[in-house]
């Protein structure tokens, strides 16, 4: 099922205080930006966490500190830095990304990467040395040992990805700065997400709309947290 179809099916709303297609387009943009950002972030973070978990190198503790600091990095500052990067005078100015979903993806990527890397790293380093040794003793190559470790850490890695998604979709500061909270003249979201829409509607006194959007956002976050809790428990066994 496509993201658009998911977004269409989410709000079963009647007599809404806003135009048709407004909420679904906002949900779509929110999900699209967060899913793409978190996918890219995962593809980047897991190899980094594996490399750090399997090797010792000078400055490893420093890199860990940078990642941990990144977890608490203020999102508005990230938004500001991405804005400078994609603005006309910035290094990516020629790509004309300012106030686009792509710019929002970049800022969410920056925000989601530290938690995904840090939690994955904790999960990978938490795998017992005995398990690594056993894989080697049974004839495994280095790659086999790495695969065993990923498999043992699968619940932790899953939690990391979903935690990154939770941070991305709940974020308001940076997407407001780099996305601009824009809709088309028909009121369809271009770069407006659930969080930025809530902020705007509340500021304009449209509390009913803000509450509905808030409920949708909370529902999405609850579902994601439910999945995190679920995979944190014992996962399915495979033979």
């Amino acid at each position, binding site marked *: 099922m496509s993201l658009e179809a998911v977004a269409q099916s989410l709000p079963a709303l009647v007599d809404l205080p806003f135009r048709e297609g407004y909420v679904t387009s906002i949900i779509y943009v929110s999900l699209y930006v967060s899913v793409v950002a978190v996918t890219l972030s995962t593809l980047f973070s897991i190899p980094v966490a594996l490399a750090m978990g399997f090797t010792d190198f000078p400055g490893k503790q420093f890199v860990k500190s940078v990642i941990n600091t990144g977890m608490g990095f203020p999102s508005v500052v990230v938004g500001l830095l991405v804005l400078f990067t994609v603005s006309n005078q910035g290094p990516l100015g020629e790509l004309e990304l300012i106030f686009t979903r792509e710019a929002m993806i970049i800022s969410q990527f920056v925000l989601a990467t530290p938690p995904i890397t840090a939690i994955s790293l904790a999960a990978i380093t938490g795998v*017992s040395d*005995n*398990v690594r*040794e*056993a*894989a*080697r*003793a*049974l*004839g*495994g*190559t280095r790659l*086999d040992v790495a695969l*065993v470790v990923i*498999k*043992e850490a699968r619940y932790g890695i899953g939690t990391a990805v979903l935690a990154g998604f939770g941070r991305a979709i709940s974020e308001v500061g940076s997407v407001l700065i780099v996305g601009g909270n824009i809709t088309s003249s028909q009121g369809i979201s271009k770069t407006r997400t659930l969080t930025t829409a809530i902020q705007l509607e509340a500021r304009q006194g449209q509390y009913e709309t803000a509450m509905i959007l808030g409920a949708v956002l909370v529902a999405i976050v609850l579902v994601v947290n439910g999945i995190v809790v679920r995979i944190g428990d*014992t996962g399915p*066994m*495979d*033979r």
Partner: protein
Amino acid sequence: MIRLSKVTHAYGDVPVIEDVSLSVDPGEVVGIIGPSGVGKTTLLRILALFVRPRDGTVELDGESVWSVEEGERLALRRRIGMVFQESSLFDATVARNVEYGLRVRQGWTDRLREQLRSIAGRNGSWDAVDEALDLVGLEDKVDQSARSLSGGEAQRVSFARALAYEPTYLMLDEPTSDLDPRNTGLIEEAIQEARDRGIGVVVATHDMHQAERIADRVGVLLGDGLTEIGPTETIFENPTDERTRKFISGELVY
């Protein structure tokens, strides 16, 4: 034959194994006895080609293990199994654990095919897995989670896991130290069965009675190396080394 010649090893500046020479043939059980902390585990890890000793040579069927390329060494290492003192089962079913050694010996295409079959819910079964589990009396646990096993069962699965790919040599590090008499008896029976199949087994143990029960030859590892190695009866009845005699009789306490 695995042969260690004048092997010495140390962790940092602390010597652990000094000047040890030892050989193990297929189809025999060699017991390594000695008090805790004298380097039994290190000796086993050297025999399993896990650890490169600081000095001395390690040969497997005449091949100097640490002089060959890594790929060749992997092939040599795959002829040796090792069971650790602490349970090290993977978080998967018993079957998945026991077949691991067989799977890593497959090519990537076959492994991918197996994986796809597994995802599709059609799991192949390995005769060697059933046979190895049968040997340790756990054939009925094949689809059970490894996490749900008792300590004794987990150790027996570890043993089956090392046997399934039919190694030529098997290193067992205190395999029964935390087990009850029933599980100990089952492991000891499995060791005898492995020997009967032509596998050379080395068992490091602090339990002298166990060594006396199961080993064809016994080596005594004391603080400064292997003081004596010989037929089990000779070591226990008529040791030539004075420290060995004191250790066997309980006069030499560490």
